[in-house]
C-alpha cells in the first residue's frame, strides 16, 4: 500500500470530464473550417457557451466560462486541498498587475481582470482600495507595496510585472510545498524554468543585454540565474543549456520564435501526460486543468486566426499538443 493519498471519486469524475475535451478530429475540423462563423458553430456543438450560441461578441466569454468551470469542477472535487491554487494564483497576480497599473496610469483596466482566482475579484478590489490586505496572501501584499516602490524608482511598468511574477512563483511554490505532492512541486519548478527560458529567448532575440534578462528572471526553478547568464555569453542562443534538463527544448530556440514558444507549451503538456497513467492519485486533476487551459489557448489561436483571415497552414504551426 502506497502512502500517497488516493482520490478514486475525484479521478473517476475527471476521467469522465476528459471525455468533453476537444479531440484531434475536432481540432482538424476547426482548422479546416472556412470562416470564424463555422468555427463558432463547431464550438457550440462541442459544448462551448452552454445554451447560448457563440458569436464574435461573446466567444471570449464562452472561453473564460469553460476555464472557470474546469477550475471550479476540480476545486469542488477536492475541497480540502489547496493544490489547485497553483493554477489559480497566476490569475490573482494578473489581476493585481491590472489593479496596480490602472491605479498608476489612471486608465480603467476593468476589462483586463480575469476570473478563476483564489481571491474573489470583488474582495481583491476592496482590499486594494482600502489598503487592507487581510484577504490576500502575504506575498501578494508585499508585492503590491514592492511594485509601488520599484515603480517610483524606475518609472517602468515592467518592474511591476517582474515583482508580481516573482511573488506569484513564491506563492505557487509555497502551495506546492505545503501540498507535499511531488508532481505539483515539479510542475511549479518546471513552469518556472520554462518561463525563464521563454524570457531568455525573447530577450536574446531582441538583442538586449544580460541585465535586461536579470530584470525579468523569476526565482524558484531548477535552472539558476548563473546558468542563464553564462548561456547569454555563450555562442548561439541554445548552447548554454547542455547541462540542464532542457537541452533538447533549448535547441528549438534556433528554429525560430514561434516554434520555441509552441515547444515550451508542448514540453509542459508532455510532463502532464504522465498523469494519464495514474488511476487514483491527484495527477489527473491537475492535468485536467492544464488540458483545459491548453484547449482554450488553442481555440483562441484558431478563432483569432480565422477572424483575421490567417492562412490555415500558419495556424496549424502554432497549435499546441492536446492532452487526449
Amino acid at each position, binding site marked *: *500500500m502506497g502512502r500517497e493519498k*488516493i482520490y*478514486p*471519486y*475525484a*479521478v*473517476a*469524475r*475527471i*476521467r*469522465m*470530464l*476528459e*471525455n468533453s475535451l476537444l479531440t484531434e478530429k475536432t481540432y482538424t475540423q476547426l482548422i479546416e473550417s472556412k470562416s470564424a462563423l463555422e468555427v463558432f458553430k463547431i464550438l457550440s456543438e462541442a459544448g462551448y457557451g452552454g445554451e447560448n450560441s457563440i458569436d464574435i461578441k461573446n466567444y471570449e466569454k464562452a472561453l473564460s466560462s469553460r476555464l472557470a468551470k474546469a477550475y471550479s469542477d476540480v476545486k469542488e472535487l477536492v475541497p480540502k486541498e489547496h493544490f489547485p491554487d497553483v493554477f489559480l494564483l497566476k490569475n490573482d497576480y494578473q489581476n493585481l498587475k491590472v489593479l496596480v497599473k490602472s491605479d498608476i496610469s489612471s486608465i480603467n483596466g476593468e476589462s483586463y481582470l480575469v476570473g478563476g482566482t483564489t481571491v474573489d475579484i470583488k474582495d481583491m478590489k476592496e482590499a486594494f482600495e482600502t489598503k487592507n490586505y487581510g484577504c490576500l496572501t502575504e506575498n501578494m501584499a508585499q508585492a503590491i507595496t514592492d511594485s509601488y516602490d520599484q515603480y517610483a524608482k524606475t518609472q517602468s511598468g515592467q518592474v511591476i510585472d517582474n515583482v508580481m511574477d516573482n511573488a506569484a512563483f513564491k506563492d505557487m511554490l509555497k502551495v506546492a510545498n505545503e501540498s507535499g505532492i511531488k508532481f505539483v512541486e515539479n510542475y511549479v519548478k518546471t513552469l518556472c524554468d520554462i518561463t525563464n527560458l521563454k524570457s531568455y529567448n525573447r530577450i536574446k532575440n531582441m538583442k538586449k543585454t544580460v541585465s535586461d534578462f536579470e530584470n525579468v528572471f523569476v526565482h524558484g526553478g531548477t535552472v539558476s540565474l548563473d546558468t542563464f547568464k553564462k548561456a547569454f555569453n555563450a555562442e548561439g542562443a541554445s548552447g548554454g543549456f547542455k547541462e540542464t534538463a532542457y537541452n533538447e527544448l533549448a535547441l528549438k530556440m534556433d528554429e525560430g520564435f514561434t516554434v520555441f514558444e509552441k515547444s515550451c507549451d508542448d514540453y509542459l503538456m508532455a510532463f502532464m501526460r504522465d498523469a494519464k497513467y495514474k*488511476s*487514483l492519485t491527484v495527477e489527473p486533476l491537475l492535468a485536467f486543468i492544464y488540458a483545459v487551459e491548453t484547449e482554450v489557448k488553442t481555440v483562441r489561436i484558431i478563432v483569432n486566426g480565422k477572424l483575421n483571415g490567417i492562412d490555415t497552414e500558419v495556424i496549424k504551426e502554432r497549435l499546441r499538443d492536446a492532452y487526449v
Partner: protein
Amino acid sequence: MESLTLFNFSGQFYALLGAALAALAGIGSAIGIGIAGEAAAGVVSEDPNKFGQVLVLQALPGTQGIYGLLIAFIILLKVGLLGGDGMVDITVSQGAYILASAAPIGLVGIFSAIAQGKAAAAGIMLVGKKPSELAKGMIFAAMVETYAVLALLISFLMINSITF
C-alpha cells in the same frame, strides 16, 4: 502434550482465533469495494447509464471476504461449534494448527482485496472513458483474484489435513 501451552490459552481459543483471523479478510474486501465504489460514483455522477457496468467491477473485491467466511465456517464446523453438541476438546497444538491454517486467507485476503479494489477502480475509469472495454477492465481486476484463490486453496488443504 501439555508442554506446549502458549500463554496458557486453551486449544479451543486458538481454534476460534483462527476462525476470526480468516474472517478478517473482510477488512480488505470492505476497503477494496470502498475504493471501487468511490470511483464508480464518480463515473455514475457524470453518466448514470453506466451504473450496471461499473457495479460488476465494484463487486469484484468482495470475494476475499466470502473466502474468509468460508474458511471460518469450516473451522467452526470442525470444532463442533455449529453442530449443536458443543465444542469438541482439542489440544493447544491442534488449536495452533487451525490458527496457522487460517493465516493464508486472512492475510492474503486483506491485501489482495485492497489491491483488487484499486485495479477495479482503474477498470471503472476505463469503462467511463471507453464503455466497450468493460471485459478488459474486468480481466485486469480479476487477475488479482488468482492469489486470493491460491490462499483459499492452501487454507482449505491445511484445515482438511488436521485430524483430531
